[in-house]
């Protein structure tokens, strides 16, 4: 229905003459003014809620005094690297970096292969309804709120009433106060994280496996290949690009640990292994009002994260020709 009048607008000589006289910028404005109008509120939002806080990082180099409104961010007395120095001289710096890195690292090496293995298995199931049911049931936990997940962890691991400890007692063991012991915190964090995300993360691999042409399977089967051979020589090589790319992207998260789960599960008794940069920033900044100091620690974390993501992205571009940028 658009084609019917395709001729009509070509025949507007006035338009084409005036277009010749216009500068490129004017032309662009004429063509794109509605696009600009659309994206204007978005740009304003980004300026206020993303770029203004970035500029506000200036506060980590000053003695910030709260209560002066937005401009207060830029009015504190300049103190240079005082807060960074304070952080790196404190005993917390090493502990926080270690905990943040280790939790992210264990989550990666433990959490990354599981979705792939699960995807390999569930795609072997030929009944479509069964396969889909399996997928829905396993990705549901991903959408459950962290508060609920932590509430369940807290209850299940409770030394007196928790089902895990009831099972341990049932088999003759002694109950363990999991959440009260520093040596258990990372395990709890990593296992519960993998539990929550493996189904969702497998979706992308399932899609990649299902995209393999059916006749390739048939051809291998006719040749008498066993199922293991098919997986090893057809499925795995086919999904390799997806795996590599997602692995590199996951590496970008090596210095970012979600605030919520740690915050909801930890207690002062397990800070030694549980405290991460984001929770420390929250305690220092929001709870103790050491705003400048907390902002400096946050800036340090942002910079390290940025560097890692940048490296991951460059590696990805070199190895796979795909990058997020």
């Amino acid at each position, binding site marked *: 229905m658009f084609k019917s009048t395709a001729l009509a607008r070509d025949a507007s000589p006035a338009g084409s003459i005036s277009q010749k006289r216009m500068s490129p910028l004017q032309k662009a404005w004429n063509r794109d003014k509605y696009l600009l109008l659309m*994206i204007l509120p*978005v740009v304003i939002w980004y300026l206020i809620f993303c770029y203004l806080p970035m500029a506000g*990082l200036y506060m980590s180099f000053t003695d910030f005094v709260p209560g002066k409104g937005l401009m207060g961010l830029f009015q504190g007395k300049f103190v240079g690297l005082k807060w960074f120095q304070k952080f790196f001289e404190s005993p917390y710096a090493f502990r926080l970096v270690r905990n943040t890195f280790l939790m992210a690292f264990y989550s990666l090496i433990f959490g990354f292969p599981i979705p792939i293995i699960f995807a390999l298995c569930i795609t072997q199931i030929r009944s479509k309804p069964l396969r889909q049911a399996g997928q829905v*049931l396993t990705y549901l936990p991903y959408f459950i709120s962290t508060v609920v997940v932590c509430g369940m962890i807290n209850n299940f691991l409770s030394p007196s009433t928790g089902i895990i400890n009831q099972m341990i007692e049932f088999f003759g063991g002694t109950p363990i106060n999991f959440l009260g012991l520093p040596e258990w915190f990372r395990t709890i964090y990593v296992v519960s994280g993998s*539990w929550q995300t493996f189904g969702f993360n497998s979706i992308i691999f399932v899609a990649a496996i299902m995209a393999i042409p059916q006749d390739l399977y048939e051809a291998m089967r006719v040749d008498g290949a066993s199922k293991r051979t098919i997986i090893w020589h057809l499925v795995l090589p086919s999904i390799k690009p997806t795996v590599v790319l997602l692995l590199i992207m996951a590496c970008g998260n090596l210095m970012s640990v979600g605030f919520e789960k740690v915050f909801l599960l930890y207690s002062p008794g397990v800070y030694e292994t549980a405290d991460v940069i984001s929770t420390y920033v929250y305690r220092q900044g929001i709870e103790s009002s050491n705003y400048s100091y907390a902002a400096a620690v946050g800036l340090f974390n942002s910079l390290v994260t940025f560097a890692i993501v940048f490296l991951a992205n460059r590696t990805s571009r070199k190895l796979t020709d795909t990058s997020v940028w």
Partner: protein
Amino acid sequence: MSKPVATTAHKNPMREFIQEDLGDKIFDIIIWIIVFLAIVVCVYPFLYVLSVSISDGAAVNRGDIWLLPVGFDLSALKMVLGYDDLWTSYINTVIYTVMGTVCNVLFSILAAYPLSRRQFFLRKKLNFFLAFTMYFSGGLIPTYMVVTGLGLYNSRLAMVLPVLISAYNVMILRSAFEAIPEELFENANLEGANDFIMMARIAVPLAKPTLAVLSLYYAVARYNDFFSALLYLGKTNLQPLTLFLRKVLLSSSPEILQSAGGMLAADAAAQSTLQIQYVCIVLAVIPIMCVCPFVQKYLVKGTMLGAVKG
């Protein structure tokens, strides 16, 4: 090695199964075991929570429940439903979820459509302008200062404005818009349609599957939002369900439960705290369980950023 033959399978798969050689049989069995275990691991905690929440209180206190409910008693549910705080927070959550999701989706479209137009002269610059925020941010404290500096502390807008746009979701939507054949836009343009009309009549209808998934992501994120509420909402009457749940679930002392319930203190003491906690979990999880299965068929589209296209 020949043991695994004794499995329960349906007729057709069974015949297939018998015809397979031993290696494939073992392989099949291992696969079924893994899938079965994965499903059990994901479903069991929820079934257990549900069972506890509707079981007989005495049985719960004895620790008799392993999978299925023992006895049937809805008194914990009744009591939780009697908490005013629960209702206040539930209504707040509904407000934040609806208001937030509508604004999120609207602004994502407004951001993604211009960025998907190939001839847009600011396309590259604005793309970088958005994408940069995915990799670097001012962090918690400056953001907190900006939001509170704008007077949003203890305001319902604090649950919507600071999380209005997710750059990642905009990128997903942008790829979906880019996948629409360019001729459609060209033809509409020749007909005299401006970009607003093309966005509403062409881009949005053709990207419906992706929009469905984005709406789900946003809605779930708003429904589950804990962090914004923790930072910006001090008043109880503004707090969403997540903060109420934190009070009930993660402070093991029943006093808080009682103070949350106000005058119901005496009842609460009699009732098993555990059961009340589990009832709250059930109430919080039900909406999610109802929505998620329906978007399954779209989910793949929404999880694939440019990543898997390549």
